[in-house]
């Protein structure tokens, strides 16, 4: 339904599906393959109905063989196709990690520039569903570590609608992280929303007092926190990194030059994560702009426990963001 502002209400899931449909319609070389993407309708119903619309050649169910079908996706890309490979969840991506790291990310370099690998690998990820230690991984940092990969994180509805389309323009492998906990979430996007830029970070809310820098499931949490801070007289800026590799440091620096404070929020374990990289970049480049030490709120250093209260406690929550911002601004002393 289009309203007077020319926006539509849409779930994150539906936005992802519209992007997939566009991609399949626009280019015959594009096909989707993954476990249960067809007959089952997608483990999370993202591809529901696409098999009926595009048929088995374009929507391929594959056996439980992550090394095999991700590798096959890389091979199909070498052979002239443009595959979108769905790894059901990031938790199973390690079974395909050898293919991703040792083939997709390196073939261009090893071949002295003769080969490139235009494959897209989508995976759902994230926390918050009490899925315990093997099914709750936030492994964006693992992938962001690898030269040769482009790593995108879909933190908003607009990006759910448009990031894939931009990724398809890449000549090199793109990893796209989608967030299971956001699938049912409704959001508003322009009725004519489509392709979005996927090279830069974006300021999701402007502010002058502090930069909350985050991505993925952290974006809406940070925006909620920022809203709560307004009545306290704190004007926080929220930066959505979106592209975890290569990092858009310019957007980060511009924001921190304005606010002089940076709080980094990430669900992944704190040690050696994306926030650690962002923090180092700030320190190396714009240290003298800072009025306070950079702070991080990240996942606790523990495999994810099953009970709700322990899962909640192991992740940065909106309340944690609010109180950390207050602390950083020494708000409690005023």
């Amino acid at each position: 339904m289009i309203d007077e502002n020319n926006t539509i209400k849409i779930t994150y899931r539906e936005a992802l599906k519209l992007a997939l449909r566009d991609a399949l319609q626009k280019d015959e070389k594009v096909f989707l393959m993954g476990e249960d993407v067809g007959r089952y309708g997608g483990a999370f119903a993202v591809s529901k109905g696409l098999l009926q619309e595009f048929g088995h050649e374009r929507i391929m169910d594959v056996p439980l063989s992550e090394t095999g079908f991700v590798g096959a996706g890389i091979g199909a890309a070498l052979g002239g196709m443009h595959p979108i490979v769905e790894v059901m969840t990031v938790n199973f991506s390690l079974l395909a990690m050898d293919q991703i790291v040792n083939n997709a990310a390196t073939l261009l370099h090893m071949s002295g520039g003769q080969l490139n690998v235009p494959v897209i690998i989508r995976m759902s990820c994230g926390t918050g569903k009490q899925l315990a230690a093997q099914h709750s991984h936030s492994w964006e940092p693992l992938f962001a570590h690898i030269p040769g990969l482009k790593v995108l994180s879909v933190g908003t509805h607009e990006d759910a609608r448009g990031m894939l389309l931009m990724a398809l323009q890449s000549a090199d492998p793109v990893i796209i992280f989608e967030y299971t906990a956001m699938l049912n979430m409704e959001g508003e996007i322009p009725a004519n929303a489509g392709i979005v830029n996927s090279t830069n970070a974006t300021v999701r809310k402007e502010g002058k007092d502090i930069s909350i820098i985050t991505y993925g499931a952290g974006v809406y949490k940070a925006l909620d926190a920022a809203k709560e801070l307004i009545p306290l007289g704190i004007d926080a800026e929220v930066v959505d990194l979106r592209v975890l590799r290569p990092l858009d440091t310019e957007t980060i620096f511009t924001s921190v030059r304005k606010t002089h404070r940076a709080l980094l929020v990430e669900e992944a374990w704190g040690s050696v994560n994306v926030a650690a990289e962002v923090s180092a970049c700030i320190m190396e480049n714009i240290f003298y702009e800072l009025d306070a030490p950079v702070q991080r709120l990240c996942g606790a250093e523990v495999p994810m426990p099953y009970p709700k209260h322990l899962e909640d406690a192991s992740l940065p929550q909106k309340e944690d963001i609010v109180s950390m911002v207050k602390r950083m601004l020494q708000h409690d002393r005023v």
Partner: protein
Amino acid sequence: MENTIAIQAATTIDRAHGSELLYQMMMIRRFEEKAAELYTKMKIRGFLHLYVGEEAVAVGIMQALTPEDNILSTYREHGHALARGIDAGKIMAEMYGKMEGCSRGRGGSMHLFDVEKRFYGGNAIVAGHLPIAVGMALACKKQKINNITCCFFGDGAVAEGAFHETMNLAALWSVPLLMVCENNLYAMGTAIRYSHAVQELEKKGAAYGIEFAAVNGMDVLQVEKAAREAVEKIHRTGRPFFLVCNTYRFRAHSMFDAELYREKSEVDEWKKKDPIPALQKQLLGLQLTTDDDIKQMEKKVDQEVQKAVDFAEAGTWEPVSALTKFVYSGPNK
């Protein structure tokens, strides 16, 4: 390997054994129906994979194992855990996430562990536990411990590289491993014909020089017999064995499954082969039980399940201060 274990007698069914098998299957069924109910009441969360329809496999196989044997399973493991003799209350408490659970609440439904019962999970990465099973069997062999390791997994797992590496290693190293494939014809929504170029999964044993058999997994007596024969062979030869149990899951893959991939009529056809009424009928025919016995048993099962729920309800939540426990071994392990 020297065979020092007495060969178990071929399965003869007497009143006591028949009742035991029936009771265990009915207990698993009722326990899981209750779990489904508790899931809708949000007492149990996360993923919940039910074993309804497949009970004869776990119960039949366990008959052939001793308390010293090792067991590894998947995320669909409530049946295996119960048949192994893990306390129903501890399993239910685990599914609630309470400290009294068999994994102290840290694992939930997909990660039941009980080292005393030699039950090593509860693994939720498909085929992730298969190589571990080889290693456990290898450790027994190296230490000249005369136990076997029994590893349960699904038809879907057979497509994973880990399955094939496991089979090769088990045969190459000649370890006492019982590989039990629960072929329920589906891996989530993918029917076996879309997963496997060769659908008679047992044939994959031959490629690795591993002895194999396939059995009707809807008949607990046949499963027990096949398991006893397999275990006897493993002990006699010291070599692995691949047993495929053909079965069917009556319910959805998990609590999030709309079952778009199969016809209701197919499910109904399989329900006619329900292993529980089948055994009841068999025992009644042999006059090894009565309708009244079965009613009594139902009552007992209800009580035991209720006891498990009460135990879980009364359990305690681990304090948040303990969040980062169990990351490394040590004094506060």
